[in-house]
């Protein structure tokens, strides 16, 4: 295995993603250039201004228009990207469904920040979790390196003929986006070869084979059938995400799967977490394991589609699992989105762990090691006693 040449850089998460976008060199980027936009688009605009990319950059008047322009660009057969965050993602709402419904490949890094009110600009996963059912693939990142790697892989996943769905690359606001991180970048030529040339299924600009995109589904009604196709594409995405992650691993020495497990084989209980908190959780899990405590962890990378089968296989032998959610579903006691999904996935399993949910970090509330230790210690008690005292817990809440 020959690992491609790489350069060690110190970059913020946003700069790492902007670099990935530069190396992808998409045909078009449409973006709203003002807050809640992040330095991803600012950095990329500089590459455009400096003539370092061939991209047609369209500055639009809102995120609603940004996503609309991307839908137009993808329909025209272009490789398109945009980036957003928080309220910006919320403003794209109706277009998210159109991008996935029309089966248009595109990649959108989203800096995970909460949604108001009260007004708050800090990290949590409420924005992208709200778009959970919009038919986009969701890839979470732990750090700048993963945000960069996920952005490159997202292009291949999104454009795969068996998938053809838009992909969100998610990175935690401020914790990843604005923190300086050591990372390895690939050579431009390596990325160019990896992402290859986009071969669209159709193009509105192809005058020889005219197509109609976005037609009325008719009073006979075919809508239901198209939604089933979208679900099938999501099911196809599992293998594609794994294949692309494996190929990327062979290229870079950094393989990716649908999640990353640590210490699960000999663990009796484990924590499941998304995003940047995985780093802190891993640190605490390592500390506890060094003291002989049988704890493991899973860092979930692919949230949509939800890798239920793999997760069942990974956790069914455990006595207890704690799911860390950085957003709430406000379902009146059902817990956060990862918790409800995993709990549902385990319903048919003969062997299944007891489950507790820790909702943490809303509106950027910090998650220090002490809190992870508190949750892990409570989880150990659940595993030992076989009793769940409190199913839904709020970690770091003043109560």
């Amino acid at each position: 295995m020959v690992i491609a040449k790489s350069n060690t850089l110190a970059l913020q998460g946003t700069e790492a993603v902007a670099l990935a976008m530069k190396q992808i060199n998409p045909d078009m980027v449409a973006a709203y250039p003002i807050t809640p936009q992040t330095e991803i688009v600012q950095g990329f605009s500089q590459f455009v201004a400096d003539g370092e990319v061939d991209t047609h950059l369209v500055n639009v008047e809102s995120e609603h228009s940004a996503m609309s322009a991307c839908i137009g660009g993808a329909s025209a057969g272009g490789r398109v990207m945009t980036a957003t965050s928080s309220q910006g993602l919320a403003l794209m709402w109706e277009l998210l469904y159109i991008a996935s419904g029309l089966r248009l490949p595109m990649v959108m890094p989203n800096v995970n920040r909460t949604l108001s009110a009260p007004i708050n600009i800090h990290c949590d996963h409420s924005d992208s979790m709200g778009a959970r059912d919009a038919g986009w693939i969701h890839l979470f990142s732990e750090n700048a390196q993963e945000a960069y790697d996920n952005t490159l892989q997202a292009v291949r996943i999104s454009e795969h003929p068996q998938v053809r769905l838009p992909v969100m690359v998610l990175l935690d606001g401020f914790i990843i986006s604005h923190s300086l991180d050591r990372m390895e970048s690939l050579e431009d030529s390596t990325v160019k070869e990896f992402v290859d040339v986009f071969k669209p299924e159709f193009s509105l600009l192809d005058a020889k084979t005219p197509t109609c995109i976005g037609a009325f589904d008719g009073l006979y009604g075919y809508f239901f059938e198209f939604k089933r196709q979208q679900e099938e594409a999501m099911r196809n995405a599992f293998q594609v995400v794994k294949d692309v992650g494996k190929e990327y691993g062979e290229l870079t020495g950094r393989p990716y799967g649908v999640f990353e497990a640590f210490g699960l084989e000999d663990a009796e209980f484990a924590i499941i977490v998304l995003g940047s908190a995985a780093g802190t959780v891993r640190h605490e899990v390592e500390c506890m394991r060094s003291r002989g405590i049988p704890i493991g962890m899973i860092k979930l990378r692919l949230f949509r589609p939800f890798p239920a089968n793999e997760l069942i296989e990974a956790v069914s032998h455990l006595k207890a699992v704690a799911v860390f959610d950085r957003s709430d579903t406000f379902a009146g006691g059902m817990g956060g989105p990862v918790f409800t999904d995993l709990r549902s996935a385990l319903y048919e399993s003969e062997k299944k762990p007891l489950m507790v949910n820790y909702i943490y970090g809303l509106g950027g509330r910090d998650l220090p090691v002490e809190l992870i230790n508190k949750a892990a210690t409570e989880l150990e008690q659940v595993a030992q006693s076989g009793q769940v005292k409190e199913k839904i817990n709020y970690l770091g809440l003043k109560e």
Partner: protein
Amino acid sequence: MSWDISNIGQWTWKEHPPGAVIKDPGNSRQFKTGGWRTLRPIRDEEICNQCLICYMFCPDSAIKAAGEKITTFDLDFCKGCGICAEECPQNAIEMVDESKAQEAVE
């Protein structure tokens, strides 16, 4: 490409083109939309002076003409919008209740 969409109402989810993309231009000719109509245009040939204004205004090209004369309304596509009746300078077109028009034919 040319699709036979005559049986499209029976297609399973596996048969539809992904993303509802229509790669067969002009196939709306096979997709009859006259069934949406609740009002039917009836032209009084005595009053009509063949100015063809209705022909130009019809958004569905559902008014047929030959030799610069209106021949018929294509009821497979006329949605009964009434623009022809509104625009007719002679008031030669009347919109009548579709169900009553059908009864009259039967």
